[in-house]
């Protein structure tokens, strides 16, 4: 099948990458799991980090799965207990895996914990072990394989755009069809497609966008997979805003996926591969600062130092790279505003993307940038620390609870009465959009930089989706 931009179709799974995950290490021998301890000795979750947990429970109310189900084993404290059990020799039973898998990785618990427990490191180490030692049922495996054969690859994502809806894609194997993988993926792809602007509006970014006026910084920009393919307007706005604020923006052509989805799902080797390529791409560009506009990508790029710590050729470079990564709002706040703002007379609700607020601690900067815009009224959403249920690919893997979380978030958003919802992650936008639509709430959607861009240029906020 031929894509409307003239691209040849992509052969989707399964023979290509993963190269890691459960398949790479072979199935767990049948009949032995009861005696086999959960974790091997290669980077299991750290006993010392687990020991930091004082069992106070302060993390429970911010955990989306605890708020949904009210049970200990689906809370951060309970999951840490399970990791401890695993270290003490308990087997990696289906039940145990189910509770690790149910974790959205939203890191709200890291923010909430007064003892400084590094749950992020714990769950990442655990997920790698799960991928290595646990055999998931065939349907689930196929679904995961499909996701990881699709999302991190721009050209494949592009192939899914336009009139080519998931159901029509023909490169899929029979197994995928039988396992209803597409039924699961379809709503997500459909949501992306519904929100994405029509194809012809796709703005192609040059490799270099020069600073307007006096140059204050030279930055590299990550375009991202989903952001780049489905929300290109966000990238264009990012480049314009950065340029308006005095940045020379370099956009390396040969950049791929940053590996966020892989790292958040324990697919270590795949993640490392993506990370190395990303470091290479930006080193070639020779920039001191790398700017990201997708929260999930930014948070995983800031963790490259840990991810590549065991690779002598990359460890040091990865650490340098990680230190250079900034979320776009973070960088703009650091630089300080110079470009004049035009009024935007709108009430705006700002939604904290978990990977920005919890994983990167960036909460104040986007709000401050929005407040600088004359006429704009900022409204806070109740329970801001609770995840909307998107969480990378969690909503594809766990559609029902994700819908419930999305609906809760949509209700609190509707309660603000705002005209425009602003956030910094494509996943959140898609997730919340479908809940809002289901609920019949009419509200515009936009990325933070799109609002800044509109204000700087003195044009109406174009935004995405419903009020297009």
């Amino acid at each position, binding site marked *: 099948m031929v894509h409307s931009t003239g691209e040849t179709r992509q052969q989707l799974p399964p023979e290509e990458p993963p190269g890691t995950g459960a398949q790479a290490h072979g199935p767990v021998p049948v009949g032995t799991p009861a005696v086999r301890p959960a974790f091997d000795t290669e980077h299991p979750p750290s006993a010392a980090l687990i020991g930091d947990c004082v069992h106070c*429970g302060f993390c429970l109310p911010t955990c989306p799965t605890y708020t949904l189900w009210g049970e200990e084993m689906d809370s951060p404290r309970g999951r840490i207990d399970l990791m401890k059990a695993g270290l003490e020799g308990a087997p990696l039973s289906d*039940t145990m895996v189910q509770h690790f898998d149910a974790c959205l990785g939203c890191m709200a618990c890291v923010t909430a914990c*007064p003892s400084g427990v590094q749950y992020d490191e714990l769950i990442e180490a655990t997920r790698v072990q799960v991928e290595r030692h646990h055999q998931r049922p065939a349907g689930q495996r196929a679904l995961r394989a499909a996701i990881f054969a699709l999302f991190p690859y721009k050209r494949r994502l592009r192939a899914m755009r336009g009139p080519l809806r998931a159901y029509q894609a023909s490169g899929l194997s029979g197994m995928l069809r039988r396992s209803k993988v597409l039924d699961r993926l379809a709503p997500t792809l459909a949501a992306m497609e519904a929100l994405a602007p029509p194809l012809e509006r796709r703005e192609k970014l040059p490799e270099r966008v020069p600073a307007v006026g006096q140059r204050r910084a030279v930055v590299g920009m990550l375009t991202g997979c989903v952001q780049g393919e489905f929300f290109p307007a966000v990238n264009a706005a990012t480049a314009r805003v950065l340029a308006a604020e005095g940045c020379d923006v370099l956009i390396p052509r040969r950049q791929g996926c940053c590996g966020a989805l892989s790292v958040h799902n324990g697919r270590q080797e795949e993640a490392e591969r993506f990370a190395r390529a990303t470091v290479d791409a930006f080193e070639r560009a020779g920039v001191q600062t790398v700017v990201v506009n997708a929260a999930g990508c930014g948070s995983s790029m800031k963790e490259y130092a840990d991810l590549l710590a065991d690779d002598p050729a990359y460890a040091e470079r990865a650490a340098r790279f990680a230190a250079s990564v900034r979320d776009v709002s973070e960088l703009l706040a650091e630089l300080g505003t110079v470009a004049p703002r035009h009024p935007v007379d709108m009430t705006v609700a700002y939604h904290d993307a978990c990977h920005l607020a919890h994983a990167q601690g960036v909460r104040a900067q986007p709000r401050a940038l929005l407040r600088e815009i004359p006429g704009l009224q900022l409204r806070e959403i109740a329970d801001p620390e609770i995840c909307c249920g998107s969480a990378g690919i969690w909503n594809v893997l766990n559609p029902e609870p994700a819908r419930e979380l999305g609906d809760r978030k949509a209700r609190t958003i509707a309660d603000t009465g705002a005209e425009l919802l602003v956030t910094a992650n494509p996943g959140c936008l898609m997730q919340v959009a479908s809940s809002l639509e289901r609920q019949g709430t009419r509200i515009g959607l936009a990325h933070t930089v799109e609002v800044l861009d509109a204000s700087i240029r003195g044009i109406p906020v174009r935004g995405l989706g419903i009020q297009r």
Partner: protein
Amino acid sequence: MSVTHGTTTTAGPVPGDTPPEATSATGDAHRHSAGIEAVGRVARAVLPVTGVLSDPTQLRTYECDGLAHYRVTPALVVLPETTEQLAAVVRACAAHGVPFVARGSGTGLSGGALPRADGVLVVTSRMRTIREVRRADQRAVVEPGVINLAVTRAVTGEGYYYAPDPSSQQICSIGGNLAENSGGAHCLKYGFTSNHVLGAELVTPQGDVVALGGLAPDSPGYDLLGTVVGSEGTLGIATTAVVRLVRLPEEVRTLLVGFRSTDDAGAATSAIIGAGIVPAAIEMMDALAIEAAEAAVHCDYPAGAGAVLVIELDGAAVEVEHEYAQVERFCTEHGAFELRPATDAAERALIWKGRKSAFAAVGRISPDYIVQDGVIPRTALPEVLRAIAELSSSSGVRVANVFHAGDGNLHPLVLFDDAQPGAGKAAEQVSGAILDLCINHGGSITGEHGVGVDKAAYMPRMFSDDDLDTMQLVRCAFDPDGISNPGKLFPTPRLCGEVPGKRKHAHPLVEAGLADAF
């Protein structure tokens, strides 16, 4: 008492060589398997599938509360959603002589919700609906699993809040608060949970559903509600609470005051209260506690302070204005070197953050620690603090002090490093000696964290055998078979026959004609 880092230490004379599993407090896993199976069948019949847990992996996550030293895996966990479901499970327990333990959010610091290996853990975390807000009556009717702070959040829009505010308020449950008679910084002025619970629905240890108290301010007859509040889950399980809502004050002023020593800060506290001012809160932290809080939340407390007071005044604006001037004067007169009033909500939040995160923050300056909880008459504060300092210097064990100075509720944090041989033992001794200090000064072994399993052995230090026997009579009246949270609150199961078996003889006091069984 809470010990960080999952160490094996605790205060109190619990013998270190007897694992909790083997004590009478926790039960024997093998004795009741038939009973457990029977209760499990009933539970599966009345509860949703996800409401009954028996997978060992899942059970394991319920093995301890906020006092992680004591760990026992329960035989069965149930998560009822309604009073009827909960009562059905309790009835089944009663029918089969299976002990049960209630659990709210599992933040208790005395092991009150420690499960029984031969029993059922009844968790209320799915009973979390605020059933009714009666603003005009200043009442709310809530289920036991409702989080303390959720009550306040639900009513602040209407100008009210729920006053008792344990530091754990964002997660502890109203049922747990009721069972522990929990308090918080603002209980100095507004009283403990017992002053704010006006009624409760209780599932008795026989599985009957009874109403205690109600919406009206007083109910005639014995104050059974008062008996149940603070009973630590030993008299049944609360399935509803009617709580009082308090009007949000017109004005709140928060003041952070730096002193050179805890003596000065203590004297200022006594002067303020002695003058008839009742602040909403007076909290004290000493130098070591300040260091911990700084490390954790960068609260920017006055540099070089030997102690700080966090003082909050609330009420009508004119009254607050007047009291504020006096408080400032008393502090200055007693050697305050810095007075820093919060100028906005963010500053107030930061001042409180330093105080409220102090327990968990101590983990940043010491690998392990014990949170002690004791009460003394406020006037004994300087003397007791000096004695604690002496204990600390003679034993070489560091003690940080964080406490509700206004009502003399001490929370000494005894620091140690379990990796050093003997350090845990030394810390236990200091911690125990602090409790003795409290008792000797006319105080009590717990201000708000409860007795649970942790301090049960201390009860005889405060009470005579006759006292304890009399308390047991109350317990027997509610729970003759001793199946409701057995092994907690009292040192050893006494009277009522063997726990959890049936009562065999009349109580000795009854036999002697000195008391009557209810």
